[in-house]
């Protein structure tokens, strides 16, 4: 009884706080200093048509490297916990049982039709990250969802772990190498002006941004894929 009362009191206090915030809220009429700097200078600084990408990949590039690292650690921990060696002699339970459970004609045919298109769309999203909304993280997640579709249509399918981890580590290393190259050749770590900025609004423009976003897309896609593949395979134990 007293517990419920305290919880209600806390909720009421929280609600009062939010109502106060809501009543005192007035939308900004002008951009603040940082935002207006980005809006005014991102085109001449980076050559990217999408300001969000310019901020994520160059102005706040170090944060993005940190984000990718966090995702990498998560994927590593998932596979570390779930891929324990199977005791020798134990029969693989589940495979036969899975074979009996077919995923159905609709899903299988749909997968065959959709997977190439989804992969193509994912690549499009991260290659055009400097021109249209989207980028490495979104594109990588779309790539991983194509893999998820494959896993759903055939749960016994096995993927090449070595290939996935190779793609993941090579793109990670290249990402850092490009960052250091920016330190040597241009203004600072992860500066995109190590390549010519090119004509504004074309595919090969904005310096190293398309290269960096392609690497991030491959890395994120490989990380999500390895997480899902490990989770689905660990059911065999």
């Amino acid at each position, binding site marked *: 009884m007293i517990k419920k009362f305290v919880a209600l009191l806390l909720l009421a206090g929280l609600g009062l706080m939010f109502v106060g915030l809501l009543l005192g809220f007035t939308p900004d009429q002008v951009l603040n200093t940082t935002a207006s700097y980005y809006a005014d200078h991102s085109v001449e600084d980076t050559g990217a048509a*999408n300001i*969000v*990408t310019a901020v994520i990949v160059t102005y706040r590039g170090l944060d993005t490297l940190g984000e990718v690292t966090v995702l990498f650690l998560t994927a590593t921990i998932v596979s570390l916990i779930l891929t324990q060696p199977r005791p020798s002699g134990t029969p693989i339970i589940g495979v036969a049982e899975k074979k009996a459970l077919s995923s159905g004609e609709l899903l299988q045919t749909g997968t065959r039709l959709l997977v190439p298109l989804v992969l193509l769309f994912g690549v499009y*999203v991260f290659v055009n990250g400097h021109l249209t*909304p*989207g*980028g490495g*993280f*979104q594109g990588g*997640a*779309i790539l*991983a*969802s194509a893999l*998820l579709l494959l896993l*759903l249509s055939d749960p016994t399918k096995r993927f090449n772990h070595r290939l996935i981890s190779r793609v993941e580590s090579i793109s990670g290393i290249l990402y850092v190498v490009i960052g250091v190259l920016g330190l040597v050749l241009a203004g600072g770590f992860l500066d995109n002006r190590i390549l010519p900025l090119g004509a504004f609004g074309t595919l090969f423009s904005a310096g190293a941004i398309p290269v960096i976003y392609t690497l991030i897309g491959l890395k994120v896609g490989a990380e*999500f894929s390895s*997480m*899902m593949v490990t*989770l*689905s395979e*660990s*059911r065999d134990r």
Partner: protein
Amino acid sequence: MSTVMFVMSLLLACAMIASAYVALRGQSLSMAVLAAGAVSLFASVMFVLLAAPDVAMTEAAIGSGLTTFLFFFVMGRVKGGKDD
């Protein structure tokens, strides 16, 4: 913000709250996971209305796509719960 946009975002907000309620109070676990995915889906449409397409794409792909299936994978692994 025009009236149409306002009405649409109001409807979306109601749908988000309704699916969040289903996710919390629903009968079965898989229903709750699906409802949580629906919250993300409505949120991603809301982000498009608020002119943030980049965030909307992330929310749709990761929040409502991958996370939902990650939950199902994990539910397949932790079998034997009481109120499954």
